[in-house]
């Protein structure tokens, strides 16, 4: 397999907004990343990316949809070149996210809440949220580094 995306690759996924099905994200992200040869720290990268996307979806299920059944989450995974990176867009039609309510955790004193979006920020290179009409739009981006081989 190539160590770069041949062209921009787009994979779309639509999930029921239910904690039960968020385990699917891990398999999908692992599946995408294992097609890139010589990726640096593939396990850390896959785990971190899975956790970041998972935390956004958990936030959507719990806060945007308040754990009510029947709602959906839409995800787009794009592999982009120059530089090689993955862009993940997550959308929902739930309640608007109140960024002013979310506070960073105090890491010196363990807290029960507040780690979710902190982890998303720490595990990605960029993280954006915007309200777009009826939709919440979350976008994260993570660089994919290829290890240099000895010649």
């Amino acid at each position, binding site marked *: 397999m190539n160590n770069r995306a041949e062209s921009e690759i787009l994979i779309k996924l639509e999930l029921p907004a239910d*904690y*039960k099905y*968020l*385990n699917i994200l*891990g398999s999908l992200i692992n599946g995408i990343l294992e097609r890139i040869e010589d990726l640096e720290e593939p*396990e*850390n990268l*896959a*785990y*971190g990316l*899975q*956790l970041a996307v*998972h*935390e956004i979806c*958990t936030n959507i*299920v*719990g806060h945007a949809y308040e754990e009510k059944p029947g709602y959906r989450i839409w995800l787009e995974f794009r592999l982009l070149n120059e530089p090689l990176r993955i862009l993940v867009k997550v959308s929902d039609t739930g309640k608007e996210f109140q960024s002013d309510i979310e506070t960073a*955790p105090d*890491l*010196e*004193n*363990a*807290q*029960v*809440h507040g*780690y*979710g979006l*902190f*982890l998303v920020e*720490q*595990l990605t290179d960029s993280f954006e949220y915007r309200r777009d009409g009826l939709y919440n739009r979350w976008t994260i981006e993570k660089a994919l580094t290829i290890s240099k081989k000895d010649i």
Partner: protein
Amino acid sequence: MNINVFDIVIRIVTLELEGRLDAFTAPQLRSKLDELQNQSVIRYVLDLTNLEFMDSAGMAVMVTLLKHARQQEGDVKMVLPKLEAARRILRLTRFDRVFDTFETAEEARKSFSI
């Protein structure tokens, strides 16, 4: 002759967590811990050796347990996961400093100095 025997048994509960600890499975752990807390257990070893994935909902259950145990003068000792990627998250959130951490459950159990 009088022989006075005092037999003190200290209960330490070890929970081995395998697979995923996330928003879907965290209520299962919470319910098991409620059961143990109702039995007045205050010393725990959380063995994460075979934990494959943990999210902030799982972390919330662990912190709640830690706070409760320490309030009762007990504690929660953590056995670190095998998976380096999972250990990295524990470092990032500084859970490796908040909890006493160990490589094996045996070491964690021995660390309870009564």
